[in-house]
């Protein structure tokens, strides 16, 4: 049973989306922080018969319109829920989602830049282990073909993101642990040692 965690608000590029995490009162079963954790795989239905866009949460932002308003208020904070519920709902958690591939209607997964874009307000679902495995399973090994795409983003969060992804994949594909360890080792070196002056 997929867990809906957010809806898409906007995109900055063809692969970079911003989604708003559903808060309390917005859906029946709002997501827990573990559902939209850093490195969580999500999917977004593309509508029609196009299947799903697959993405990974690579950033989290907290949006608070009240930030900076330090002046006195007429209503105390607890009363706002009663008199101005809309205002209260403007405090949201946003997540950055990087599209890393897609799964078509028949379940065939492709990694890399997806050809289609998701729609505004499309629902974002957290992928379970079975779906994550299916997305990464190659023939005969596993696939991590979107890694170069992520590395080219230039964000300081990308190396920890890939480390988190590989950590999860190692648990899901123990038979490929040695192979993943080679990439993991390189990422760890680049994340931990190169900034301290280690050779690239």
């Amino acid at each position, binding site marked *: 049973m997929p867990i809906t965690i957010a809806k898409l608000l906007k995109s900055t590029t063809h692969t970079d989306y911003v989604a708003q995490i559903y808060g309390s009162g917005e859906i029946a079963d709002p997501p827990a922080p573990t559902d939209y954790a850093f490195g969580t795989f999500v999917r977004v239905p593309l509508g029609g018969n196009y299947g799903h866009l697959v993405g990974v949460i690579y950033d989290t932002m907290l949006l608070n319109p009240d930030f900076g308003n330090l002046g006195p208020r007429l209503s105390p904070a607890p009363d706002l829920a009663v008199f101005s519920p809309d205002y209260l709902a403007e405090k949201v958690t946003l997540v950055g989602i990087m599209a890393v591939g897609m799964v078509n209607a028949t379940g065939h997964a492709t990694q890399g830049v997806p050809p289609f874009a998701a729609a505004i307000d499309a629902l974002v679902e957290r992928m379970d282990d079975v779906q994550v495995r299916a997305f990464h399973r190659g023939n005969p090994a596993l696939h991590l073909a979107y890694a*170069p795409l992520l590395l080219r983003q230039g964000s300081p969060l990308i190396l920890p993101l890939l480390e988190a992804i590989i950590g999860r994949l190692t648990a899901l594909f123990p038979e490929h642990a*040695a*192979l*993943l360890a*080679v*990439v993991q080792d*390189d990422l760890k*070196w680049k994340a931990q040692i190169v900034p301290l002056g280690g050779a690239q």
Partner: protein
Amino acid sequence: MNERPIGLTKGPGETPHEFLFVSPDREQALKVGEFVVYRAPVDGQERNILARVTQRQPLRLYPDAFLADPGVGPEQVATLLGYEQASPDLFELVATVIGYYDAALGDFINPRVPPRSGCPITLASDKLLAAVLSKRRADDTGAGHIGSLLSRPSGQVPVMLDLAAIASTHLAILASTGAGKSYLAAVLIEELLKPNNRAAILVVDPHGEYNTLIEMLNHPAFIAPEYRPDVQILKPDAVKVRVGTLTLGDLFYLLPNLSEKMSYLLRQVYREVCQRSQITRHDPERWTRGELIGALQKIAEDDDNKQDAGTAGALIWRLESVLEHQSAIFDDFHHLDLNRLFRPGRCSVLQLNEVDEREQQVTVATLLRRLFAARMKTQKGLVKEGDELYLPYPVFVLMEEAHRFAPAGGEAVSAGVLKTVLSEGRKFGVAVGLISQRPGKLDADVLSQCGTQCILRIVNPLDQNRVAESVETVGRDLLRELPALTKGQDIIAGEAVNTPVLCQVRQRYTPHGAESRNAPEEWLAYFAPEEQARRERESAPLAVPKRSGESKMFK
């Protein structure tokens, strides 16, 4: 020709006759030394231009991090990260333009224009290479099938030496010990003695390695109607130098560190015996040791000249010691008969393995001197059939351990005459093949006079440098291959081939006679039960039979 392009040109190389091309080379065909072809118009005519691959650099290398786990191949990591090409290899190759072959000229002509960018490069076909690399075709007179092109499957592209070029402009075979130089020399001798060549050869063999050539006598490869080669092995005791053929220089060389006075006396008596020999025997080279020593004795016994007596006595002692007591090669009347040594279709092997090094040098010096004189006099019509120095056919002398006879910076008595033969032998049909395992110790002038070079594996940097200095026909790119060659692989360059080639020497028809000894096996054999029993048997005291009636009890 294989028309399927194997690469595309990228652009010009560092030098005007080099160009770069890029190839995936999935079949690993573009080895260093391999020949490729591109087509280009030259003087309005489309030509196949031959070039040789001299360098090969991979353009795509896996990141070092992909090589972190020996149990996980880098291609697995690449596949994980989305690179799923079957073969990622891409190479940049440097090729040196040789040119197009002009059959009328019998040589390559360099077009002097590098190929345009994007020009297809094809692998040169076996047929094309067989036609253009060698000057001669198989079984032509003067063709020597020495092996096949190293970059192609064995036997696919035969390498034929032009033996006529070798027999006029000389040859050098250079290699580290154990690289197969004697083997190559034997292959060359076999080719020279085949029915299509029938050469007159002398092999100077200081190690006694060429005995097995005798098996050529009955080998079908050498037998033709009305022809069967002749191989004669001259053992050290058959090697004779007639003392009359020794020059004053030879004598000084055999008697080092003579005092001024001794040198003066020797010069005096030498001139005297030569003159006397000219008068009495019409030949200044017929004097004997007795005459030389007799002339000195006369001085020693001269009461009017007491001061020279002691010197003459000492000189007599030294001459007797060198020319009579220490050596068996000097003789008053006999020496190696040139007409017996040299005859078309005959290979004479002069074994010098028990002869002192200085005497080896003197033997070679006197022999080469007589040989050169014989060829010169015969050529000029100064001698006639039946004369000792009448030698009416070109000859080829192959010398093992050539650095002994023309050492770098040394003063071997044979070096002078060897240089004369190398510089002037061409006119008179005397060719020399020098074989050396220490090119660094070989005189640079001597080495540079050899028109054809067969260079096998050389590891020593000094020897490599000497080869690079003295052998200008071999490019630096090929010389870089020297340490990497394995036994039986060689670089052939110079007059006998159209362009330098990397060659795999063919199998000999006759067995090889210079195999290394297997010392550990021989050590083990010492402890074999039958060997121990034999030693015990031989060291046991002889049993003396008792006489009848004799008893120890009543002694």
